[in-house]
């Protein structure tokens, strides 16, 4: 009975892992990149320069800009520069309905307050969005991603049950032994970073729990709108009075918040009815300030008198639990050290999925090692393995190359970047289908090695902000990106070398195995 249970779990692990593994690999890899969303965006928009932070000065600059350019708007949005975002972002609801959903966004230089003419690019936001929306229309992508998260959680639990020797082999990794090493690697990365894997897959379900398990919400509220209003509170904004009264200087309000919460960093700052008697200003604390993804730390002021009107109420224990999971998933609170660790564990999660896919195929290929022909279904898995792993890496590289090579003024260039990502990914699928397995791996990895390894050079040539510049001025986001690309290139080159060389070790082992079976036969 017990063996039967374990075998059933192994079966579930194997097959759900295979079916969802390709997509999960993409979700994990892009999600990992999303931990450096702002840094990637900074690389993707090299026109935006970073300057020392000065919140009050930035706020005054934003107010001056918005009063001059959006005086008649009903709603302003300000995001101050931070350690990770160099630009001062402003946005406003356009009375003429221009911009995306009638909302105009601009990026200002944090030192001069002048509009930055940056190239259009989604930057890190593309990978962030892709990792839970999969470039599909709302809400289908979120549903599919949630299904994948559920399968990941299932895979972890069934994996633990299947593994059985968790503690006995806790410290075990035996390289250079073919399938044995792959299994050791798969198990070790899975077990050693298990807290991360469990946290990341469970919390992704918590993030979308209102969508995945809507019954309770629908029964009590009828629709999710009422639920969110009660959960997060509604901004009670009065109608504009139609009487012009100047807006209170925003840095004053910032100073009041600092008195209440010394050292608080600001997230979004919203102004309703600016320049009207009924103006309201709300300041929210940055998500970077606490592990839990809180919504309660906000202050709403009267925009004409500067009086504090309301302050967010602390969360209940249940909300804090949920928000802690959300916060842990997103990692907004992480400083540079912890952020790198998040990135590393993201890679680890990706590697668990990748090694699992490789093993599924390797185990079955062994049976057909002698015959020249591989069964169609195994060939299909092989092609999809190659396209979903090395092909995806090529797509990511294509996105970055497009960012640097497309003319900055090109109409709709952010769309072109995304198109190049998908085009190269599709071409990689075609290439994998046309070339024999090992060659296809080797060639795609080699191309990936070149594409990532040369990115720092491309950056230096096209923007003049190469490593020589970024290291000298201490622009760590830019330098970190280039160095990571270089590291990725070197790793891919090593992997490509392994694939392109003849598989000596495997051949020797097979020969030994043959001898043994021959002896046994005697």
């Amino acid at each position, binding site marked *: 009975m017990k063996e039967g249970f374990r075998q059933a779990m192994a079966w579930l692990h194997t097959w759900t892992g295979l079916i969802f593994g390709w997509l999960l690999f993409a979700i994990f890899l892009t999600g990992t990149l999303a931990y450096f969303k702002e840094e990637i965006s900074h690389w993707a928009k090299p026109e935006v320069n970073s300057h020392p932070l000065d919140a009050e000065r930035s706020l005054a600059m934003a107010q001056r800009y918005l009063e001059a350019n959006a005086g008649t708007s009903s709603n302003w949005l300000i995001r101050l520069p931070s350690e990770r975002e160099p630009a001062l972002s402003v946005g406003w609801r356009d009375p003429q309905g221009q911009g995306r959903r009638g909302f105009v966004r601009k990026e200002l230089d944090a030192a001069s307050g002048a509009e930055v003419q940056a190239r259009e690019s989604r930057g890190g936001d593309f990978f962030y969005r892709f990792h839970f929306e999969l470039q599909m229309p709302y809400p289908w992508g979120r549903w599919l991603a949630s299904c994948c998260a559920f399968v990941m959680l299932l895979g972890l639990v069934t994996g633990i049950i299947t593994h059985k020797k968790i503690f006995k082999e*806790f*410290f*075990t*990794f*035996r*390289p250079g032994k073919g399938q044995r090493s792959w299994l050791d*690697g798969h198990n*070790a*990365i899975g077990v*050693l*970073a298990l*807290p*991360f894997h469990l946290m990341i897959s469970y919390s992704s379900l918590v993030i979308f729990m209102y969508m995945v398990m809507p019954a309770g919400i629908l029964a009590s509220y009828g629709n999710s709108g009422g639920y969110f209003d009660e959960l997060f509170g509604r901004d009670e904004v009065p109608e504009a009075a139609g009487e012009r009264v100047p807006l209170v200087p925003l840095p004053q309000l910032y100073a009041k918040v600092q008195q209440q919460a010394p050292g608080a960093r600001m997230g979004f700052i919203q102004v309703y009815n600016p320049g009207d008697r009924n103006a309201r200003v709300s300041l929210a604390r940055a998500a970077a300030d*606490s*592990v*839990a993804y809180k919504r309660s730390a906000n202050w709403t002021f009267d925009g004409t008198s500067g009086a504090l009107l309301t302050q967010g109420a602390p969360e209940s224990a249940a909300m804090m639990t949920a928000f*802690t999971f959300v916060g*842990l998933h997103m990692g907004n*609170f992480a400083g540079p*050290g*912890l952020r790198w*660790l*998040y990135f*590393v*564990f993201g890679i*680890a999660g990706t590697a668990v999925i990748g090694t699992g896919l490789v093993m599924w195929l390797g185990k079955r290929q062994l049976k057909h090692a002698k015959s020249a022909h591989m069964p169609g279904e195994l060939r299909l898995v092989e092609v999809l393995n190659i396209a979903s792993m090395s092909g995806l890496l090529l797509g990511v590289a294509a996105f970055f190359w497009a960012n640097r090579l497309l003319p900055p003024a090109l109409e709709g260039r952010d769309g072109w970047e995304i198109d190049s990502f998908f085009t190269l990914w599709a071409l990689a699928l075609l290439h994998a289908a046309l070339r024999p397995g090992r060659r296809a791996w080797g060639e795609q990895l080699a191309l990936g090695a070149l594409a990532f390894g040369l990115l720092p050079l491309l950056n230096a040539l096209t923007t003049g902000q190469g490593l020589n510049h970024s290291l000298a001025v201490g622009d760590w986001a830019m330098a970190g990106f280039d160095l990571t690309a270089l590291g990725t290139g070197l790793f891919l080159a090593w992997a490509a070398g392994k694939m392109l060389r003849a598989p000596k070790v495997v051949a020797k082992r097979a020969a030994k195995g043959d001898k043994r079976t021959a002896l046994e036969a005697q």
Partner: protein
Amino acid sequence: MLAFALIGFAGFASLCLAMEKHFNELLKRKPTAVQRKALRVAGWALLLVSLLLAVQVRGLALGLVEWVAVLMAGVTLWVFGLPYQPRLLLAAAAASCVLGPLLAVLAL
């Protein structure tokens, strides 16, 4: 962060050595029962100390998160480095035993 990371790393190294198989492989001799027990107790004690230190220095929320993160990173490094650089990692674990507490004291 580095202080409790190093102490936790030493703790895991000690727990690893407490297993007969790994003790044999790494130190080329058989452990006595007392040695194994001592290593196991020391390993758990080091992990506990690093946890307390993390919570003490960084607060409950951040401390717990960072403690789990650096521990996972350390043990992953240990397990995947062991087949290639066993002596280097043993030396690193020994150094961590000294350096970790030293850094913790200096930070007080």
